[in-house]
């Protein structure tokens, strides 16, 4: 009965590769997010989708492209991976009208670029 799930949990890859991270939520929420957490634990918003539409797009390299096939899924594709992309990526979801400011986070995907 996992609320927000991400796959894979761990991702080790070489520089220059392209990779995707998948996120699914079964909470019926209409807003989903991608965050990046660096080695110092700083959590920074990357993207936010509401009802499959992009509503927040922070200053993120255009190598990062989110895709939301439906309200329950928000995937993150990363092209031409760089060393600095190594971090933990968290997906989250919320439904402001019913959950207020509560965002539910997934377990994270630990990306290591070699």
């Amino acid at each position, binding site marked *: 009965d996992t609320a927000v799930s991400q796959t894979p949990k761990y991702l080790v890859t070489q520089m220059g590769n392209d990779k995707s991270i998948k996120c699914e939520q079964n909470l019926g929420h209409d807003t989903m997010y991608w965050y990046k957490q660096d080695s110092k634990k700083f959590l920074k918003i990357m993207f936010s989708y509401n009802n499959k539409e992009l509503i927040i797009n922070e200053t993120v390299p255009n190598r990062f492209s989110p895709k939301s096939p439906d309200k329950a899924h928000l995937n993150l594709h990363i092209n031409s991976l760089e060393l600095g992309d190594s971090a933990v990526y968290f997906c989250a979801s919320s439904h402001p*009208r019913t959950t207020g400011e509560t965002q539910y986070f997934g377990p994270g995907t630990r990306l290591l670029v070699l």
Partner: protein
Amino acid sequence: QKEVEQDPGPLSVPEGAIVSLNCTYSNSAFQYFMWYRQYSRKGPELLMYTYSSGNKEDGRFTAQVDKSSKYISLFIRDSQPSDSATYLCAMSYYTGNQFYFGTGTSLTVIP
């Protein structure tokens, strides 16, 4: 200057101590204030959520917001080893808006 500042610690306290965690912020437009707890290798989970100024209590946890000083606090009473985690404050301007997180404070409660 970051929108939200938080002392990263680490903070180490004996079991049973009262813990005080704090964040300051620069933008007076923030209205929603949250505290998240993150265990090692896990995603953040919501602990407390406060709208505007005031106090909110939930068991051993108390959240305080002082908008005039742009300062928020989380107090943990009778701290337990299971409270050992990183605590992140977060804020937003309005419902559905993005969150701005502090850098997190690492807490260890020693048995």
